[in-house]
């Protein structure tokens, strides 16, 4: 196996780990729930995306690679919608639907 995919994997996963760290720092430092929510979801979805990207270079075959992408898409779409739901629930006078 050549060195190039390994390097790309390491770079992408390091970047992904950085975004997870950024999300956690945002969570620890931001004062109100809505901005914490924002920091958390943006950073984590990017973090997972970069981790998936890094692992794609290591995937053996098309099917495992597709599964990785599918997992990321699932988390991304579900996460975005749930963020809306949480923001809705966090509003002090949010109607209960």
């Amino acid at each position: 196996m050549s060195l190039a995919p390994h390097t790309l994997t390491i770079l992408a996963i390091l970047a992904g780990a950085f975004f997870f760290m950024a999300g956690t720092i945002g969570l620890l430092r931001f004062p109100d729930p809505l901005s914490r929510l924002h920091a958390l979801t943006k950073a984590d979805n990017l973090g997972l995306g970069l981790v998936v990207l890094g692992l794609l270079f290591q995937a053996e075959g098309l099917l495992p690679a597709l599964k990785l992408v599918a997992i990321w898409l699932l988390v991304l779409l579900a996460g975005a919608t749930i963020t809306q739901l949480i923001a809705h629930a966090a509003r002090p006078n949010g109607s209960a639907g």
Partner: protein
Amino acid sequence: MDDFLLGAAGFVLAMVALGLVRILRGPGDADRIMAAQLLGTGGTAALLLLAQATSVPAAADVGLVLALLAAFVSVAFVKGAERSKVDGK
């Protein structure tokens, strides 16, 4: 390479754990619902890394199930928070 992936999985887990401390303390329910979000994303990432690092491809399936069920639990959280609001009125 495997050691690097395992280390990355450990790092992501450690970050999730740090975030959990903040979240579990609350004060609001919204903060606690975020715990499911954080665990879903971070746990999935850790499992995918673990699958590659330890050559257990099935761990990716566990990650998939985790992502799905984390979304399910988040919806249950939101429904719960809404319901207690209605009860409180």
